C-alpha cells in the first residue's frame, strides 16, 4: 500500500477533531468487550451500502525473536490457507462471489485482516474471521510454496528496490536490541529456517479473542449486529496472555553512518532521528513539525530543496507517533542527476537547523493545523481508513478514547514548542544517516534492438 498518502499520521491526529468541526463528525464508535476479552468497535455510517470488517491482532515483527524475523507476516499469509470448515480456496471464493475484497497487512506492531463488502454481507465476513481465529489448518504442503511466495515478495519489495533496501538498513542500524531492528518481512535465512511448529506456536500465542480487536465501519445497525458478533465470537475461548515485549532500545550516543552500494540510477539519502512515540507530550509538536517540513508544495523541504535549490527529484519527512514503542523521525531525498549527495544531505540538515534556530512563523503553524483539520474530514470519506485509525490506536495500546484528547493537544502546540522539540530530538548524536551510492550497471544493456528497429 505504498500509494497511500504519506501524511496519514496527520490524518490520525485530525480524526479526533470532531468536537470542533461542526457538522462534519461521524458518530463515535460504540465499544463492547465480549466475555472472552475481545474488544469490538462499531461505527454506523449510512452514506453508502458498504462496510469494512477488520480484525486486528496485537502481534507484529515487534513480537518476534532473533532468527525468526518475519514470522508474523508468514503467518498472515498462511491465514488464507483454510480451516476444517472452510478448506483452502473457500475463503477467497466466498468473499469474491459476494462482491467483496479481502486482504491483510502486517506491520511492526500489528497484523490486520479485512473485508470490504456490501453492508448486507457483513455476517459472512464475521463468520469467516471467527472461524479462522481458532481453526487454522497449518499444512506443510501449503507452507512450502507459500514460503517461496513470501521470498518473491521480499525480492520485489526490498531486494530489487534500492530505496527500500536503504530503509531496511537504516532500521537495522538505528535499533540494536529492539525488534524494530529487523524487517517486517524477515531476512531470507530466517524465512528458510522457519518451521510449521514456529507458525503453530505463534498462532496459538497471539491469535485469541483477548488479543484482538474487531472494527466495523459502514452501513450497519449496531443493535442488530451485536448479537451476531456475540454468537460467532463469544464461543471462542480466551487464550493465554501473550508475553510482553520488554526490550527497550538504549539511548543513542553519537551519530551512526552507513553506505549502501548497488546498481542504481540516482543516489538516495535518509536521516533517521530517534524520537518518542504517542506516550510523550512532545509527539504532538513533532507531528506539527513534520507537517511544516513536508506537507504540500509550500512546505519547507519542497520549497527549499525542490523549488529553490533544484537539488532533488523527491523529498520528504515522516514521523509515526502511533507506534507501540519509540521509533524514528526521518527526512529523505532522492538526488537529482548531476547533483551531489553530500550537498543534498547538507541542505536537509540546514532545514532542521533552521527550525532549531528560530520558531516557525505563525502562518506556518496555522497552516499545519488547518491541514490536519481538513485531512480529518477528507479521511471520513473512506470506511476503510476510518476503521484503520480506530484499529491501530487500539492495537498499539493508545486506545481510541485516550487519543480523543490528541487534537486539543495539537491545537495547543506553539511555535516555541516546535522549536524546542527540534532542538531536543533532531540532533546529530541521535541520528543515523544512510546513503545509497549507485554502482554502474554490471553489464551494458544490450542495444534496444527490436524496439528501435521497429520504430524506424
Amino acid at each position, binding site marked *: 500500500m505504498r500509494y497511500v498518502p504519506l501524511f496519514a499520521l496527520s490524518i490520525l491526529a485530525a480524526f479526533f477533531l470532531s468536537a470542533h468541526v461542526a457538522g462534519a463528525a461521524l458518530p463515535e464508535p460504540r465499544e463492547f468487550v465480549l466475555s472472552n476479552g475481545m474488544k469490538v468497535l462499531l461505527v454506523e455510517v449510512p452514506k453508502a451500502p458498504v462496510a469494512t470488517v477488520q480484525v486486528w491482532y496485537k502481534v507484529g515483527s515487534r513480537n518476534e525473536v532473533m532468527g525468526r524475523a518475519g514470522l508474523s507476516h508468514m503467518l498472515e499469509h498462511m491465514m488464507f490457507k483454510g480451516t476444517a470448515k472452510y478448506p483452502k480456496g473457500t475463503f477467497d471464493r466466498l468473499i469474491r462471489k459476494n*462482491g467483496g475484497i479481502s486482504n491483510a497487512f502486517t506491520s511492526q506492531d500489528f497484523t490486520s485482516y479485512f473485508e470490504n463488502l*456490501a453492508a448486507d454481507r457483513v455476517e459472512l465476513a464475521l463468520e469467516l474471521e471467527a472461524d479462522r481465529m481458532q481453526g487454522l489448518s497449518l499444512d506443510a504442503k501449503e507452507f512450502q510454496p*507459500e514460503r517461496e511466495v513470501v521470498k518473491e515478495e521480499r525480492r520485489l519489495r526490498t531486494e530489487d528496490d534500492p530505496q527500500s533496501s536503504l530503509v531496511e538498513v537504516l532500521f537495522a542500524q538505528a535499533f540494536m536490541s529492539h525488534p524494530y531492528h529487523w524487517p517486517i518481512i524477515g531476512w531470507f535465512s530466517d524465512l528458510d529456517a522457519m518451521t510449521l511448529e514456529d507458525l503453530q506456536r505463534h498462532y496459538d500465542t497471539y491469535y485469541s479473542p483477548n488479543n484482538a480487536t474487531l472494527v466495523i465501519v459502514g452501513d450497519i445497525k449496531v443493535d442488530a449486529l451485536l448479537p451476531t458478533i456475540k454468537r460467532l465470537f463469544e464461543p471462542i475461548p480466551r487464550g493465554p496472555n501473550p508475553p510482553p515485549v520488554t526490550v527497550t532500545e538504549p539511548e543513542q550516543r553519537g551519530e551512526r553512518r552507513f553506505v549502501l552500494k548497488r546498481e542504481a540510477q540516482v543516489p538516495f539519502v535518509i536521516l533517521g532521528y530517534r524520537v518518542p512515540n504517542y506516550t510523550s507530550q512532545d509527539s504532538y509538536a513533532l507531528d506539527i513539525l513534520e507537517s511544516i517540513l513536508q506537507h504540500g508544495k509550500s512546505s519547507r523541504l519542497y520549497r527549499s530543496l525542490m523549488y529553490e535549490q533544484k537539488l532533488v527529484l523527491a523529498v520528504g519527512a515522516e514521523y509515526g507517533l502511533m507506534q507501540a514503542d519509540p521509533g524514528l523521525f526521518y527526512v529523505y531525498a532522492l538526488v537529482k542527476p548531476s547533483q551531489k549527495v553530500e550537498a543534498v544531505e547538507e541542505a536537509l540538515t540546514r532545514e532542521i537547523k533552521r527550525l532549531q534556530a528560530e520558531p516557525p512563523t505563525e502562518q506556518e503553524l496555522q497552516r499545519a493545523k488547518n491541514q490536519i483539520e481538513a485531512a480529518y474530514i477528507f479521511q471520513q470519506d473512506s470506511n476503510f481508513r476510518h476503521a484503520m485509525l480506530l484499529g491501530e490506536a487500539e492495537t498499539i495500546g493508545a486506545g481510541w478514547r485516550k487519543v480523543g484528547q490528541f487534537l486539543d493537544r495539537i491545537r495547543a502546540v506553539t511555535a516555541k514548542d516546535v522549536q524546542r522539540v527540534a532542538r531536543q530530538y533532531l540532533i546529530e548524536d541521535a541520528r543515523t544517516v544512510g546513503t545509497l551510492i549507485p554502482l554502474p550497471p554490471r553489464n551494458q544493456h544490450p542495444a534496444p534492438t527490436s524496439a528501435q528497429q521497429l520504430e524506424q
Partner: protein
Amino acid sequence: MSVGPDSRGGFFANDVGLRRAAARLCALFMLGLVALTVCPPQTGASDLNPIRFVTPNGLTVLFLEQHYLPIVEVHALVKVGSAQDPPDKAGLANLVASLLDEGTTTRSSKQIAEQIDFVGGSLEAKASEDFTTASARVLKKDADLGFSLLADILIRPAFPKQEFERVRTQILGEIVSDNDDPGQVALKAFHRLVFHGHPYRWPVNGTEETVSKITLADVQTFFTKEYLPNQTILAIVGDLTQDQAASLVQTHFGSWKRGSPPLRTTRKPAPVERKTVHLIEKDLTQSTIILGHAGISRTNPDYYAVTVMNHILGAGGFASRLMDSIRDKQGLAYGIMSHFDARLMPGAFMVNLQTRSEATNQAIAGVLNEIKTLRESPVSDQELADAKAFLVGSFPLRLDSTAKLAQVLAQVEFYGLGLDYFMQYPKWIEKVTKDDVLRVAKQYLDPQHYVLVVVGDQAKAKVRQ
C-alpha cells in the same frame, strides 16, 4: 513517482507485508487501466442521480449533490493526452499539465501553493494517454477558492520561463530515476514494441531525447490549441446545491473562450506479426516479465465479455487462473495479473509478473499455457457465475469516495457511455455467456504472436527464444 521510505514507519505505511497488492504491479496496472475504473453500481446506483448541462461556452458539467460531509471535489477532464504529442516531442502533454499550477497571470507558483496548502486542500494536474485531468479538493467553506484556483490554472497559466526550465529538468530527472523501477523499464519497452508507429508507443512523460527538444513555444502553442471549454468535462461532487454549483461554474469558468478543437483520428496498433523477445539486463534477483499484444478499445462492444474473460484469466486476484497456477500452486510470484488496457483507441493486452531469475522460463510457460487453455475449452459454470457476481457485486466499493465518483463521472462522459451506464452495466455483465467468453478468448488472446519483455539478470534467466 513512488519514492521514499513510505513502506515503513508511517501509519498506513508500515504494512510491508500487505499480502496481495504488489506496489509495482499496481503502478503498472494504473498506467493504462483507465476504463476499468468506470465500473458501475449494482446497489446504490439509483442513489446516483448526477445532472448534466452544457454552458454557453461549451463546457460540459456533471454535478452530483452529496451532503454527507462538507467536502467539494471539482474534477476537470480535458480531452487531450499524450496520444496527441508530436512524435518527436513525446511528453509535451505531460509537461503542459505539470506547468499549469506553476504560475498564472494572476498568481505566482508560490502563491498558488500557499493558498491551497493553507486551507488544507489539494490541487493536482496530470496527463494520461487519452486525456488530462486537473482537480481541486477543498472543504465546503473553501469551495470558492477551490473553483478559483482550478479555473485559474486551466484558463490562465502563464508558463513562466524559469518554471518551464525547472520543471522540464525535473521531468528529465524522473525519467532517469524511472530506470530504478524494473516494472517501468519493462512497460516502456513493451509499449514501444506493441505500439510501434502508433500514438501510444511513448511513455506519458516522454523520453530523455524528446523532452529535451520541447520548447516553451511548444508548450504555449499546445495549450492555446487544446485547452478549450468545449473540449473539457467538469465533474463536481459534494456539499453544494445545484444553484450553488451552477453559479460557481458561471463565475469562474463563464469567461473561458470557446475555440475549435483539433480533429482527432483514431487508429489501431498494427498486429504483432511474430513473437518478439526483448531482454534488458539489470543486476536484480527477480525477472520482471511482461507478455502480451494489442487489445481492445473502451467502446468495443465485446468490452463486457472481455472483462469477464480477463477476470477469469488473471484480473480476478486470488480467484484467477494465473494466480492459482503461478502463485498458489507453484510459488513462483508474489503477484501476477492480466490486463486489457481499454482506451479510446485499442490499448494493450498484457500479463505481468515478477519471479526469481532462475524460474523465468517456467513462469512464462505457465502463462502461455493458461492463455492456451482459455482459448481451447469453455470456462466452468462456477467460474462464470463467480466472475459475474464479483464484477456486478463489487460496484459500490468502487465509488466509495467523492474523488472516485468525480473521476468516474468524467470518464463516463468522456467515453460516451451515457448517464444510464450505472444502471446498464450489471445487465451487460449478466448477459455474458460461456460461449461469449470462449469466443473473445479465441479472438483477443494470441499465444503465438506476442511481445515478451524480460528485465533482469539474463545470465540466470536464460530466456528461451
